């Protein structure tokens, strides 16, 4: 079971064990983090599951798609470590991934 480390908007850090084959968004949502709206449910159609990944781990992630980058551009808080968490599959090899929930847009 891969672990996901989530830092919420208040700076609190929580380690969430997850079943395999979930997206990071699903793990965060199902763990009950109210800060994450995830309005579209994972269709890569909004930017409300925006997270910042730990800079040290950014290279481990799959490449960003054109759709994802367009959506991230709609956020006022985009940085080079921005990702939509619905587009990251939390595989065993990503266990220990640290993500910070982006501020509300």
């Amino acid at each position, binding site marked *: 079971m891969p672990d996901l480390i989530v830092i919420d908007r208040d700076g609190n850090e929580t380690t969430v064990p997850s079943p*395999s*084959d979930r997206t990071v968004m699903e793990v965060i949502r199902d763990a009950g983090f109210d800060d994450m709206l995830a*309005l579209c*449910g*994972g*269709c890569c159609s909004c930017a409300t599951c925006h997270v910042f990944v730990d800079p040290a781990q950014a290279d481990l992630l799959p490449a960003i798609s054109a759709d994802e980058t367009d959506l991230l551009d709609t956020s006022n808080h985009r940085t080079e470590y921005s990702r939509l968490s619905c587009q990251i599959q939390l595989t065993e090899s990503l266990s220990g991934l640290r993500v910070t929930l982006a501020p509300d847009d």
Partner: protein
Amino acid sequence: MQALEERDYFTDYEILKDPYAFFEAVRSHGPVYQPPGRDYLIVTGFAETLEVLKNSADFSAIIGVQGASAPLPFEPSGSDISEQVEAHRDRILGGDLLVNYDDDLHTKTRALLNRLFTPSRLKANERFIDEYSDEIARQMIARGGCELMRDVATPFVTLVIADLLGVPADDRQHFMNVIDAAPPPGSLNTEENDFRGENHPLTVMGGFFARYILERRANPREDILNEFAHSTYPDGSVPELEELVKMAAFLFGAGQDTSAKLLGNSIRYITDQPGLQDQLRADPSLIPQLLEEVLRLEGSTKQTARLARRDTRIGDRAVPAGTKILVALSAANRDGERWEEPNAFALNRPKIKEHLAFGRGKHVCAGAPLARVEVRIILEKFLAYTSNIDLDEAKHGPRGNRDLNYDPSFIVRGLTELHVKFTPAEGVDLSQASSQAETAQ
């Protein structure tokens, strides 16, 4: 006389006309209320609705299709009825559909769907939507008026989803006829709520979709159904044919009805809100805002349902396992705790996209991006080619006292008919209608 909140939401034709008044009467007792004589709770509060929709550990979606009033096929017992729910899943209406799934089965099945309506896919389909809506708008405006639901909304949304999925042209009319002949989803006539009949749209379309998927598994093509036919679960395993068939048929049926109703409800606001249509013509970039506000005030889905499968709480109210819950999305969207002047129409409300018309959480509507695109585009056309759109007073009465009929459904908020009159805009040549709709056939 029986108090409004004590009447039966699931069968009452007066509530059908104005469900909002019913839910306000319920809300006067608090955001979570059990009307006398009913064996379910009604949740009308925005915060409480969110709480239920997001707490999928304690609340099962198993009764989403049959609704909160239909009896369970078992007697709930104990503080955790999860096993009982699973043991009876096949005896509950829609228990084998994604919309009613829970837990891992839901998450992995939903993952198949999440890849279908991405922005780039919709963009690729936008040309078809644009051409077809252009054609249909010009035709109807040249005619001076139409019955919007039959002449525009239903064929439009059906052809859009058919084109997007790759349903062959010859089968599209057949699908429309089958859907048209069937009772609405969530019929007020309880006996009609059976999916097993051989003429039910899901059964008929299921047969077609099985063939499409098998054909594509044998001979790949370039369309969404092809991608669907070759899709895998997140763990790499291959879905059963039946799972894909059920989902494709449901998608077609669900996408059809609710999007068509959204167009009807939008046109009604456009015609009845003083000054609104001119404002939208002057600045068409406001149309997405209009759609969100119509979704909030009069979204196509009035309610859904959940079953508490463990002893839990909603707000400070204890809710025992086995409690059925009517989740009144349309009431949450008019909760004064969340929305200023909740019953008033207003463009540019802050955080309007957080309305609950599409639900929230793991079951949130997967077709929302498609609905937003297609209804926006056709509204742009109707507004651009007219100087005025009005309802036909001979059919619906004057503004302020309209006579409108709604499909007899406890789920869908949708006009049965909407007779509309158009005044063409000056200088627009409506004869330019091209032959693109024929290509679309």
